[in-house]
């Protein structure tokens, strides 16, 4: 039985397609309309409102909160100033990735950590010996992500943002409700995430939608989110890498370096979980982007006498990646047609030697049950990174 989120009454009523997904045990809308295209375009041109309440949220407070998070994760969180947000990941003792998320320093001794998958026990178990309280506040908070170029204009109608900068946070009153705002998101666009008391969820939703009409706002579901996050080159736990907690063999796991998160790892400091292993082993693979040759895809459709068609949703089914000799050397874990770039793009992983930008590889592509290959070019991530994301 899936759980409702705090704004379930609103999302359920707005969902005309009746297409829902299981997101970590919660009922989440896949697409509000029969086609998610309108939602995607709202995010890139106006703004989209995502109910991200199923995201796991852990509040960590106490005198040792900063020291504990520095120990748990790969970043020196204690250095983070109040009102700042940091993106990070955490590993097990073998340096194998468990999850990724953001941490916000709400107050001197109060942090909030988000996680993709349920994993309270892992966080809680590491806390012994630290003077901290770890509490799962997932159900106590509503989390709404307002993403897109018009997001700032909309929020300014509802409250005083004081020019909140990229990866900063602050408490604000929006439409008369106490909220906590972070300039973060999972779309690679200008955007904010709004955290508030679960009971205020419906009122907040209504206020945003009422003001949003003038800003091209649309409720948007997970299908649109998936396309956006692939364009932005963001990895997804369970799709682009596997949490060490769910791996059966070491080969299934990844290090942060292998998932494009190496930049977040701060090795030279006090000990943290996985530090020793990460010093020794960075891993053999690298994460990168691939862009498929569209004419080659068209040709595969033509072979079957069909016009080329593009699924409106991203594919989360991994496909093999081959080198020029036909040897399987890696995989494409997420792929989608990018409506913004007019390109077929994917997030891929392969050994370092193949991950050089400009390298030509072959990706499996299926048309009418026929497995074929199309040429792809290796590129750096992200695919789409508009200046407005960071703009002041």
């Amino acid at each position, binding site marked *: 039985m899936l759980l409702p989120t705090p704004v379930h009454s609103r999302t359920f009523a707005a969902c005309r397609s009746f297409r829902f997904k299981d997101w970590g045990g919660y009922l989440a809308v896949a697409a509000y309309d*029969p086609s998610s295209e309108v939602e995607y375009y709202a995010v*890139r041109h106006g703004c989209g409102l995502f109910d991200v309440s199923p995201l796991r949220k852990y509040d960590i407070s106490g005198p040792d909160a900063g020291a504990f998070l520095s120990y748990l994760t790969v970043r020196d969180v204690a250095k983070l100033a109040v009102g700042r947000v940091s993106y990070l990941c955490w590993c097990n003792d073998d340096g194998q990735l468990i999850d990724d998320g953001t941490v916000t320093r709400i107050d001197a001794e109060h942090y909030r950590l988000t996680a993709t998958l349920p994993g309270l026990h892992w966080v809680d178990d590491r806390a012994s010996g630290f003077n901290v309280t770890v509490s799962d506040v997932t159900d106590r908070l509503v989390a709404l992500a307002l993403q897109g170029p018009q997001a700032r204009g909309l929020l300014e109608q509802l409250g005083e943002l004081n020019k909140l900068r990229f990866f900063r946070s602050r408490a604000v009153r929006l439409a008369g409700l106490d909220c906590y705002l972070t300039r973060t998101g999972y779309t690679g666009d200008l955007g904010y995430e709004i955290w508030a008391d679960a009971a205020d969820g419906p009122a907040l939703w209504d206020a945003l939608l009422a003001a949003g009409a*003038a800003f*091209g706002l649309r409720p948007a579901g997970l299908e649109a989110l998936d396309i956006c996050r692939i364009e932005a080159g963001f990895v997804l736990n369970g799709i682009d890498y596997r949490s060490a907690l769910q791996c059966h063999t070491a080969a299934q796991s990844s290090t942060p370096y292998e998932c494009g998160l190496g930049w977040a790892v701060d090795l030279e400091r006090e000990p943290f979980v996985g530090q020793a292993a990460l010093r020794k082993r960075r891993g053999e693979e690298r994460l990168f982007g691939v862009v498929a040759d*569209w004419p080659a895809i068209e040709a595969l459709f033509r072979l079957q006498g069909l016009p080329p068609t593009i699924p409106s949703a991203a594919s989360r089914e991994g496909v093999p990646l081959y080198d020029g000799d036909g040897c399987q050397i890696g995989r494409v874990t997420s792929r989608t047609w990018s409506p913004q770039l*007019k390109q077929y793009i994917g997030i891929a992983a392969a050994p370092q030697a193949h991950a050089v930008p400009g390298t030509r590889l072959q990706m499996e592509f299926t048309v009418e049950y026929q497995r074929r290959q199309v040429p792809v070019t290796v590129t750096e991530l992200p695919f*789409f990174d508009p200046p407005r994301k960071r703009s002041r």
Partner: protein
Amino acid sequence: MTATTRYDAIIVGGGHNGLVCAAYLAGAGRKVLLLERRHLLGGAAVTEEHLAGFKYSACSYVVSLLRPEIIHDLELAKHGLSIIPLACSFTPDLSGPGLVRWPDFARTHDEISRLSRRDADRYPEFGKAMGKMGDFIRPLLMQPAPDPTRLPRRLGESLSLLRRLRKLGPRGLAQFVQLMTQSAVDLLDRWFESDRLKAPMACSGIIGTFLGVRSPTTAYVLLHHYMGEIDGAYRAWGFARGGTGAISEAIASAARARGAEILCEAAVEKITTRRGSARGVVLEDGREFEARVVISACDPRRTFFSFVGRDQLDDDFVAQITRYRYRGSSGKVNLALDRLPDFSCRPGRGLHLQGDIAIAPSIDYLERAYDEAKHGAFSRRPYINLVIPSLTDPTVAPPGKHVMSAFVQYAPYQLAEGPAAWDQQREAFGDTVVETLEEYCPGLKDAILHRQVLTPLDLEREYGLTEGNIFHGELSLEQLLFMRPTMGWARYQTPIQNLWLCASGAHPGGGLMGAPGALCARRLLEEHYL
């Protein structure tokens, strides 16, 4: 003033085709200069602000045919291009709920079923048949026109065309010939019974031509519009974020990044020739530039008669260009609105307003509109194609306000009193459009904050579109493929050596497609003219 710099290519006119051509040539390392008469680039693909905060896509207002190859090749997304597809096609009605055609099959079936169950079932089949014809014609759009009049030289191309024709099969071939010669109504009558479905569908057959829905050859024009493709999803049309001008800006930015030099407010007065060969241009302000080739992104008549001069051309060619038909038949009315209009047949702010909206209640309505135009008057109840881009792209209007863009047909360039009479009839024409719309959305008049009326005469004077034809010459069958603009000169070259054409007056024709610009550049480079 004497010329100081010598370029590989000078492009006359900064419309989207000129810009595309400049970007490709500069990308191949050629030294390119592009000259634009106005203060802004884009030609008919411009965004203009007449009332603060309201951005009109003054002329061209939707994009469908911009080739995906061009978007990739020129990396237009990186240069800021972002296209938002139209959600649907809405045909409001004075009695009844109107018709909305969605990209979603089931919803469209539902909608058409209200008019005719039989039509609803046939509708997808029609799409498939047109798709098949489109597949046949589409490759022709991306290669220079096959020219049967020069068979020996172009044997390979002509053979491939013949092979393609054979692949259609006898029935397909018959359908193809019918399609090329029929009227839009003839074609639709073979498929559908409901007038209310056929009327909005037939409109694609008349846009930009001075023909009625019952005139022969309009079936082909209908197909031509059917072939718009975005995202490889056929028949999808879209808005550019920031208005149509954003497309031109993205292409211009790509051209500059590749090293092209672009000058605005540089009106060309003359294309200079020596012994039958183009050698450069002289601007109205006296500046001179020289180049190995001169490429005109203006329409054929302006190019040959205004810039080159009849005295430089042989009589036969002059006669052909004189006969080349423009006959602009449409105008544009752009409105800045204080609030969103409410259509009485489907009130409220639904997704149905986020597509194109056609005022085309019946075939007879459309034919009657044409009748008035034939006799030199604008239609009293015209066909209107309406979009409200501010609903999908909030950047074009202040929050809560809207812009509405109305393409209006028929507004014949040749009024009974002569084209100059448009200056007296402009406001009456604007009033007619607003009154027509008011019937469908009561209260619209009171919401209007600003109105821009563009008559065919304005299109000619302001945007350089001869006789106000939005396609640089009618898109009728006898002016297409190897006959565009004239027999024997359909491959971008002209009787003047080193003078080329790269815009909508060349194959494959008009629309926000960019193909003539890209093809012209390709031919120049591949065949080593440059």
